[in-house]
Structures are given as structure tokens and as C-alpha cells.
């Protein structure tokens, strides 16, 4: 009893200390800044929280962990709060997590109840978000005693389990997920091997000796593809919905939330619980909660999809609760619950923190600071939305020609922060191209990032386990159980396949003559690169090559089988995962409701049907499917052409003057913007970048030719180094 009291006192002290630390005005300011950025990025079309977190990460290098996580979690926690604004007003979700909100939010706006729908969305987001933080807070005392018994072998097994689950669950193509995860681990092994000093895949480049830095890779894989698709799709949201009723019915929305508190609690639990399972991304959480509400709420089958506030509440409470849930495995086991959490795990490593037992003992106050950050960010975010709804709504109709140049400038600055070498910018470009291709061909990107983040840890824990326990580490009960779960996870899709085909014999005979498709070229490219990487590894020391070779061979097998399936397997139907089944159930019930209600009312069933394809692939997909291939390729080539020319000019005159030049050219050439707007926007942007990055953050800039030739100019031209 005394031990429990002492444990409780220790945790209460840590939670109190964390609260006091977070209440520092500067940290609160960063938390609020993170919230504003989260809301803006959630609302602005094309850029999501994932790209936003990747963009912010490099600017936290010089902060203490409390401030850094306040900023990052402020952003991560509020992107889902701003999402319902475009979803309700324009019928276009700001992010994948609010896709289900459209079904009832948009019909409510059409009925003149936009204010009520938005208010219910903000309040349910707030309640869901705080519930998620609470869930994390109560998980800590439960996990703490367990964590104290975990050693390197168990942490290794958790990492392997995390990657295998993300690989298998993060897409309708588990083999591609597995390949991507293995490639990520191999990327993490680039550089000097800590055991033998062997240089692994460094290609005689000094830049790669310390390994490939995480930030350019993250920005390349998650930010550049979104920008490229923004240029390709050029999506513009029609503004035919009136914003005049945006404040009307707000109080009613708040009352709705308190009336349906039990629904909020259940959906928050779904969000938090599902969020803590690695691999199930944000884009399905809202559908699962919506499906649950549809099944359990009275009369929902008749009213959902036609403007029922309970649909909005279910979806929004769940997607904000997932953040707190996803933090639990990230902090406790170093296994991120989502791609955003994988980036956050990168932040842990950058700030010298090791996820796992340390976070629940030595660094418990940092963990509690995260809990407070999530809770406060949700309250702040909802408050800001109540106060500034019309202003935020205008952001969602911003044109790509205004968004892209500003974001691209920040991406370049962020990427260069990694090691402050030109190599960072080359990495950005290469991984941008890789990320966009993966997104285009529906290769899941989260396993790749997870592999990169966990690759080092896996190898380190493996060597420690072998050194400390010999072969017996494999027989430790927790390790054995976790490995069995990982193996079941990897084998399950094949078992499912066998069941669908009615036996092994029918499955292996269900082939056709090979059919070729452009997307297979990418798989062939991946196989070639993997083959070359494995071949290079053959000449290394045994201790340096064993892990990369095993991982490389697994990746080769997975990619090979995936290619064979693509070419030779007959198209199959009926393979439904639990999530697919839920989405289909939502679709069926809405369709049934529409029939019994006499049709009309927003076409929720159609919207759900259109969303089904997207949900099955649990990464953001390119919304460029309506465009012909030649248009996609031409515009993508133009985008990457811009990046190369941008870098070329930057090498001569520096980054800030290049941004000015690029903005003028881009706005005028790509969208024929009016000259007064072009000049005002370009001037304000370059001055703002100079003020923030040169004078406040004192960012070191990439060396330039002009700066080397005429050093005196450095005093006058910002960013000239």
C-alpha cells in the first residue's frame, strides 16, 4: 500500500512539475504558435499535419525538449480541429481525418446550420482531444511497473513488431509495406557501422559518413509530394456556400455535445484505442467511429448522411482523441502509432531522449509535459476556431499559386538545417522524387519512415541483446510472444488469401499470363536498387553486413512476390479487412437509410462510396486521378524542374533573393496572378522570411557563389553566405 502511495506521489510530482514548466510564457507562446500552425495547415488545401510536423522539426533543434514538444504537439493535436471548417462549409475535408465529417456536416451547412455543425465539431474535438490526453495520463501508471522489467531484447521485439504491423496494416498491399519498411531500415544503416567502422553505402561521400540525416528525408517523403500534387491538381474550392451563418446556432452545437456526451466518450475511446495501434492511420479512425455511431445511435440509419449532428460529433471526437492514444506506444515502447508519431520519434532522438523505460522514469516530467501539451493544445485550438472561424474559412479557398512558393521556401530552409551542407538539399530532392512516386503508385510511405527511425535502434538493441544474453535472448517469454504476434501479422494476409481462394491449391493455380503496367516499372526499379545494395554489402565485415543483408533479402523477396502478384495474379474480389468491412457497412447503411427516407439529402452513400477506395490505402493518396497521365507527368516534371532551377539560382544568389524571384515567376507564369498581388505577396514573403529566419532564428545559410566572390555583399543581402 505504501509503495502504491509512493508511486502515486512520484507521478503527481512529475505531473505537477511538468505543468509548471509548461506554464512558462515562452513555452506557452510556442504551444500557441504550434496550434495556429496546426489549424492553418489543417485548413489550407494540400498541406496536412504530417508535412507540417516534418517542416517544424528542424526548427526545434535549439529548443529544450519541453518547448520542442509543446510546438510539435501543438501542431499535431490541432490539425484535426481545423479540418471540419472546409468539410462543413465546402464539402471538402481539410484532411483525411475529417472525411466522415463531410457526410453530415455539409448537408447541415446546406440547411443553414453551418454554425451549429462547426460548433459541435469544435466542442467534440476539444472533448475528444482532452480524453486522448487523459487516456495517455492513465496509461503511464499502468505501464510503469511493466516497463521496469523490459530489457534490450524486449525493446528490440517491440520495434520489430511495430514495423511489421505498420507494414502489414498500412495499405492494401502488405508486401509493398514490408518492402518499404525494410528499405527504411537499410537507409538508416547508411554511414559508418558503429561495431566495425565499415562504411556502408556511403558512395565515397563525406556527407553520408554520419548517416543520412532524418529531416531532408522526412521533408522529401512527406512535404514535397503534397506540394507536387498541389501543382498537378490545382484544386480550387468553389465558394458558393454562404459564410454568413457561420456564427448562427453555435450555442446549439455546444448543447448538442453535452447532450450526446456518451457518444463522444465512446467515439473518443475508439479514437484513442485505435490510435494506439501502430499502423492504423488517422484516415480510418473517423470512419470507424462514424460506423459505430451509425450502428448504435437511435434512428441513425434514417438521418445519418442527411445532416445529423451526431455524425459530425462521432467523427470529430474520435480523430482528436487518436493523438493521445498514438503517443502511448511511441513514448513507452518507441513504436510510433502513426507516421506523425514516427516524425515525433525522430524529435526524441534529435533531443537525446530514448523512448522506452527512461520516459516513464528519469524523464517522466517530459512525458507528462506532452500530456499537458496535448490537452492544452486541444483547448486552445478549439477556442481559436470559435473566435476566428470566418478567417480560417478563407484560408481553405487559398489558391495553389499562393501556398506553394511560401511553403517551398520553408521546406528548403528546414532541410538545410539538418547538417547545413548542400547534401541536405540533394537528399531533399531525391527523397521528394521517391516520395511522390510512392504516393502516385500507392506504395505506403509510413513504413519507410518508421524503418528509418527505428533502423538504428533495431541494430543497436540486437547487438546489445546478443552480447548480453547470447542466443537465449530469443527465448525470453515477452520476446517470444511479440515475435509470434509479428509473424502472425505478416502471415495473416497470406492465410486470408488462401481462405478467399478456397485452399492453397486453388490459390497457387489462380494465375494468368503476365500483364504489364507502368506502376510495375517502379517495383522493378526498387528490386534493382535492393539487389545492387545487397551486392555491395557482400564485401563488408560480417558484423557490418549481417543485418543489412538479412533485411535486404527480405525486402527483395517481398518486392519480387509483389511484382509477380501484380503481373500474374487474376484480379480478386471479396478480400475485406475489418476496416474495409466497417466502411462498407457504413456505406450500406447510409444507402439503406436513403432508400427508406425517400432519397435526397446530400447523397451520403455516394460520398461514402467515393471515399472507400481512399480508405483502403492507409496513406494519403494523390487526388490527381481525374487527370490524364500526360498532364500528371508534365506537371510533375515541371515541379521537379522548378526545384532544380531553384537550387541552382540559390547556389549563386542565396535563398531569400531566390524566393523573391521564384514567387514572381511562379505566380505570374503558373496562374497569371495580377501584378499588384504578385509584387505585394513576394515582398511581404521575403521580408517575413528575412525577419524570422535571419534576425530572430539566426539560421546559417548555404554557401553561395556570390558570397564567396564578393564577401562585402553579405552585409546587405540576406541569406548570402
Amino acid at each position, binding site marked *: 500500500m505504501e509503495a502504491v502511495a509512493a508511486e502515486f506521489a512520484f507521478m503527481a510530482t512529475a505531473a505537477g512539475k511538468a505543468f509548471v514548466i509548461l506554464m512558462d510564457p515562452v513555452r506557452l507562446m510556442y504551444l500557441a504558435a504550434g496550434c495556429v500552425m496546426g489549424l492553418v495547415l489543417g485548413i489550407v488545401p494540400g498541406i496536412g499535419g504530417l508535412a507540417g510536423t516534418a517542416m517544424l522539426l528542424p526548427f526545434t533543434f535549439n529548443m529544450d525538449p519541453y518547448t520542442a514538444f509543446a510546438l510539435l504537439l501543438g501542431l499535431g493535436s490541432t490539425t484535426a480541429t481545423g479540418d471540419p471548417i472546409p468539410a462543413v462549409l465546402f464539402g471538402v475535408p481539410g484532411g483525411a481525418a475529417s472525411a466522415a465529417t463531410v457526410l453530415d456536416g455539409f448537408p447541415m451547412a446546406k440547411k443553414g446550420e453551418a454554425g451549429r455543425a462547426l460548433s459541435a465539431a469544435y466542442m467534440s474535438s476539444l472533448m475528444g482531444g482532452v480524453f486522448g490526453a487523459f487516456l495517455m495520463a492513465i496509461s503511464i501508471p499502468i505501464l510503469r511497473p511493466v516497463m521496469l522489467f523490459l530489457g534490450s531484447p524486449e525493446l528490440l521485439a517491440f520495434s520489430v513488431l511495430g514495423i511489421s504491423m505498420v507494414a502489414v496494416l498500412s495499405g492494401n498491399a502488405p508486401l509493398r509495406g514490408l518492402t518499404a519498411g525494410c528499405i527504411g531500415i537499410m537507409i538508416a544503416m547508411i554511414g559508418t557501422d558503429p561495431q566495425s567502422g565499415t562504411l556502408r553505402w556511403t558512395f565515397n561521400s563525406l556527407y553520408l559518413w554520419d548517416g543520412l540525416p532524418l529531416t531532408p528525408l522526412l521533408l522529401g517523403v512527406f512535404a514535397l509530394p503534397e506540394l507536387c500534387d498541389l501543382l498537378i491538381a490545382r484544386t480550387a474550392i468553389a465558394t458558393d456556400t454562404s459564410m454568413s451563418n457561420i456564427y448562427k446556432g453555435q450555442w446549439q452545437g455546444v448543447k448538442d455535445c453535452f447532450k450526446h456526451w456518451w457518444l463522444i466518450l465512446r467515439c473518443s475511446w475508439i479514437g484513442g484505442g485505435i490510435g494506439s495501434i501502430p499502423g492504423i492511420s488517422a484516415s480510418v479512425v473517423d470512419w470507424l467511429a462514424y460506423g459505430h455511431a451509425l450502428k448504435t445511435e437511435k434512428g441513425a440509419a434514417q438521418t445519418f448522411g442527411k445532416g445529423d449532428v451526431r455524425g459530425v460529433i462521432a467523427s470529430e471526437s474520435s480523430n482528436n482523441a487518436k493523438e493521445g492514444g498514438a503517443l502511448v506506444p511511441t513514448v513507452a515502447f518507441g513504436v510510433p502509432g502513426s507516421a506523425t508519431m514516427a516524425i515525433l520519434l525522430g524529435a526524441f532522438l534529435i533531443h537525446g531522449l530514448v523512448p522506452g523505460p527512461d520516459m516513464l522514469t528519469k524523464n517522466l516530467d517530459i512525458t507528462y509535459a506532452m500530456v499537458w501539451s496535448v490537452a492544452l493544445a486541444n483547448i486552445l485550438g478549439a477556442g481559436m476556431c470559435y473566435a476566428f472561424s470566418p478567417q480560417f474559412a478563407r484560408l481553405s479557398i487559398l489558391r495553389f499559386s499562393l501556398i506553394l512558393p511560401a511553403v517551398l521556401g520553408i521546406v528548403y530552409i528546414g532541410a538545410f538545417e539538418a547538417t547545413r551542407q548542400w547534401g541536405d538539399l540533394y537528399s531533399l530532392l531525391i527523397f521528394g522524387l521517391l516520395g511522390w512516386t510512392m504516393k502516385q503508385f500507392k506504395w505506403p510511405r509510413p513504413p519507410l519512415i518508421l524503418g528509418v527511425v527505428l533502423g538504428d535502434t533495431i541494430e543497436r538493441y540486437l547487438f546489445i541483446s546478443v552480447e548480453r544474453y547470447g542466443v537465449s535472448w530469443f527465448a525470453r517469454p515477452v520476446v517470444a510472444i511479440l515475435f509470434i504476434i509479428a509473424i502472425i501479422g505478416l502471415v495473416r494476409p497470406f492465410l486470408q488469401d488462401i481462405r478467399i481462394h478456397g485452399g492453397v491449391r486453388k490459390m497457387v493455380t489462380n494465375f494468368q499470363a503476365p500483364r504489364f503496367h507502368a506502376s510495375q516499372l517502379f517495383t522493378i526499379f526498387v528490386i534493382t536498387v535492393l539487389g545492387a545494395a545487397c551486392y555491395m554489402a557482400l564485401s563488408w565485415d560480417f558484423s557490418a553486413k549481417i543485418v543489412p543483408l538479412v533485411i535486404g533479402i527480405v525486402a527483395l523477396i517481398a518486392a519480387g512476390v509483389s511484382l509477380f502478384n501484380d503481373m500474374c495474379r487474376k484480379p480478386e474480389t471479396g478480400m475485406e479487412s475489418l476496416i474495409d468491412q466497417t466502411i462498407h457497412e457504413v456505406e450500406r447503411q447510409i444507402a439503406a437509410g436513403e432508400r427508406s427516407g425517400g432519397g435526397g439529402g446530400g447523397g451520403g452513400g455516394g460520398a461514402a462510396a467515393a471515399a472507400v477506395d481512399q480508405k483502403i490505402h492507409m496513406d494519403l493518396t494523390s487526388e490527381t486521378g481525374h487527370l490524364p497521365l500526360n498532364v500528371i507527368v508534365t506537371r510533375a516534371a515541371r515541379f521537379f524542374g522548378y526545384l532544380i532551377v531553384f537550387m541552382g539560382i540559390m547556389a549563386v544568389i542565396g535563398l531569400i533573393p531566390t524566393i*523573391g524571384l521564384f514567387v*514572381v515567376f511562379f505566380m505570374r507564369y503558373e496562374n497569371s496572378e495580377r501584378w499588384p498581388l504578385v509584387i505585394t505577396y513576394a515582398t511581404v514573403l521575403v521580408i517575413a522570411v528575412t525577419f524570422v529566419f*535571419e*534576425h530572430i532564428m539566426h539560421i546559417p545559410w548555404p554557401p553561395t557563389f556570390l558570397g564567396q566572390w564578393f564577401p562585402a555583399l553579405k552585409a546587405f543581402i540576406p541569406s548570402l553566405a
Partner: protein
Amino acid sequence: MIQIDPIQFLMQAGGLFVWVCIVAVVYAVVEKALGGPAAPDVPTKM
């Protein structure tokens, strides 16, 4: 502690404004010489 030299910042801001104007004038001249602004590349519907 944030320390900003206001004179240097104002000089840089003025310089950047002039730079943007120069770029805009050069672009406008080239654009006119090539026969007016490029037609916007709008999304293509299938």
C-alpha cells in the same frame, strides 16, 4: 534574447522590395515580348 538591428533590417527590407520590383519589370518585359501572359494551365477533366 532576440536582438534585431533595425537599420540593417530596414535596409534589407528596402533592398528586397527593389529586388522584387526589378524581377517583376524584367519578367513583364519578357512576357510582353513573347506576346502576353501565358494561358493558365487549368485542371483537365476526364
